[in-house]
């Protein structure tokens, strides 16, 4: 699938920012900081949008803000043509109903006291689906995701991580979501199981006409299933590009470093770029470009002025003074 072939924008995020409260400056004044800021992305129907970045870069916060698990303070979300100006307004409820999420740790995202069947049936139950229908849907989904009938009677602690993740996928599919958020769905799994679950995800996308919003730092997975890539660093997006362009021509120095750190063969051919220093804390971010303290191609201007978005090719935006 090529970028140009996709539908018009399905989920649009404009200048979104989430503030967190981090303590008190004085008794009455709170201290707050931006966990994510200035996020603008478009997600088209049926694409696999990949958000990559390291831990602490705000990927999960962004997704939770979209899903209404965190309040967002600035910006807006346009979903299916309707605008959400603040968290939890009626349109947001609609988004929440047609969106689902798969978490990183499959065991933690299933109630330890529920059997897999109960977990899979739960969203149906909440929607008032009858007992028989529930069982039928759950069993067919289980079969589809590769869970045997007998496994359905077990609890999360009694099955393997891969099987739990399959149950999670079955669970979110049970209510036929339009968009599925995948929050590092493979990280907690072993290499072989990762491959299996990745394959399952691909199949499900095909079978259910899903839109994926994938959060990961596993670039080989992105290369395999992604369509669009956005790189986040310390709460901001530094580069956005269609997958092919991103892998062939990463522009932002951070993107390059990130790609170079993928040790799996076939992704980065050149010399490894070892970054210095640490990821800046969002509590006191550096001035100018957030990446400048670690950047290996730093210009003097980077220390002072935050870079604006620059379009270097169709759909390829970079936030860097180098371009």
């Amino acid at each position, binding site marked *: 699938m090529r970028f140009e072939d996709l539908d018009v924008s399905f989920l649009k995020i404009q200048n979104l920012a989430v503030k967190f409260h981090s303590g008190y400056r004085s008794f009455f004044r709170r201290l707050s900081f931006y966990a994510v800021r200035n996020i603008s992305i478009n997600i088209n129907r049926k694409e696999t949008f990949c958000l990559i970045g390291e831990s602490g870069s705000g990927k999960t916060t962004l997704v939770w803000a979209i*899903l209404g*698990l965190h309040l967002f303070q600035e910006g807006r979300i346009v979903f299916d043509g309707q605008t959400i100006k603040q968290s939890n307004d009626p349109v947001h409820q609609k988004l*929440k*109903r047609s*969106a*689902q*999420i798969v*978490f*990183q*740790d499959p065991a*933690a*995202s*299933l*109630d*330890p*006291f529920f059997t897999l069947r109960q*977990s899979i049936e*739960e*969203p149906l*139950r*909440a*929607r008032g689906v009858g007992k028989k229908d529930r069982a039928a849907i759950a069993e067919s989904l289980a079969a589809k995701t590769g869970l045997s009938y007998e496994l359905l009677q077990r609890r999360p602690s009694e099955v393997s991580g891969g099987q739990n993740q399959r149950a*999670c996928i079955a*669970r*979110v599919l049970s*209510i036929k979501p339009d968009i599925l958020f995948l929050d590092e769905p493979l990280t907690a799994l072993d290499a072989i199981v990762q491959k299996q679950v990745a394959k399952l995800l691909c199949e499900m996308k095909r079978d259910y006409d899903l839109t994926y919003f994938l959060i990961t730092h596993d670039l080989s997975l992105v290369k395999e299933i992604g369509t669009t890539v956005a790189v986040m660093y310390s709460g901001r997006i530094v580069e956005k590009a269609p997958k092919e362009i991103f892998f062939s021509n990463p522009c932002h120095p951070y993107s390059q470093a990130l790609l170079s750190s993928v040790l799996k063969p076939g992704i980065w051919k050149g010399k490894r770029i070892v970054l210095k220093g640490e990821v800046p804390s969002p509590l006191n971010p550096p001035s100018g470009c957030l990446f400048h303290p670690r950047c290996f191609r730093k210009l003097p201007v980077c220390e002072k002025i935050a870079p604006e978005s620059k379009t270097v090719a169709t759909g390829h935006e970079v936030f860097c003074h180098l371009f």
Partner: protein
Amino acid sequence: MNVRSALKNPLLIAAVVILFAVIVITLFGSMLAPHDPVETDLSVRFNPPSLKYPLGNDSLGRCLFSRILCGARMSIGLGIAVVLFSCFLGVTAGLISGYCGGFVDELIMRIVDIFFSFPEIVAAMAVAGLMGPGTLNLFFALSFVNWTRYARLVRGITLSVRERDYIKAAQLSGVSRTVTIIRHILPANLSSIIVLTTIGLAKAILAVSALGFLGFGIQPPDPEWGTLLMEGKDYILSAPHLSLYPGIAIMLSVLSFNLIGDALRDIRSRQR
């Protein structure tokens, strides 16, 4: 598996046996009693244990054994009632407080703070002292502070459980608040609640008998262990059995609850 291994501990088996006996006595004590617990017979005052009166007689010649058997209903029964009521109240408050958060949480926790700032016995004394003695007053007096323990525990667990992925998943799949609380959050709290309840029972029994001992107990001629001990204490040198046996009864039942509570806690921590 773990339950089975725990049952190999002889102390614990003893505790279970005592607990069973205590429950039987609490339920059927008055039927098992060989004599009428309020019937006086001045000819046998202060008699030491004998065949007819297994634990001897008190200052009015009443059968101490029967009095202890019948007293269980008050001592243990009131303890259980207090714990169940506080548990219900505290768990509800804790769940609401922990799950809703924000202002509701702040309000409930401040109220809990207020009740918590009274030491239990002191608060109970004040209530029983001002309202007058009586089973119902004693019940409220003890529940007055007790529920805060459950509220605090449940709130703490709920706060951490609320952040777990499976609660988020349930929220996102459209499960309502009440259902989330009852079906997901409450079960996660359950094992801790059970442990606290068992140990809380031990504490409540001690508190009931302590109040009895301090003279804030229940109405005569109904016997109650703390009151029996208080009365027996006056004759501690001339008739030591009067204070010895009620004391042993209190201690054994408290001990059995404590031992079982500990065992439950061990089992739970091993399951984690």
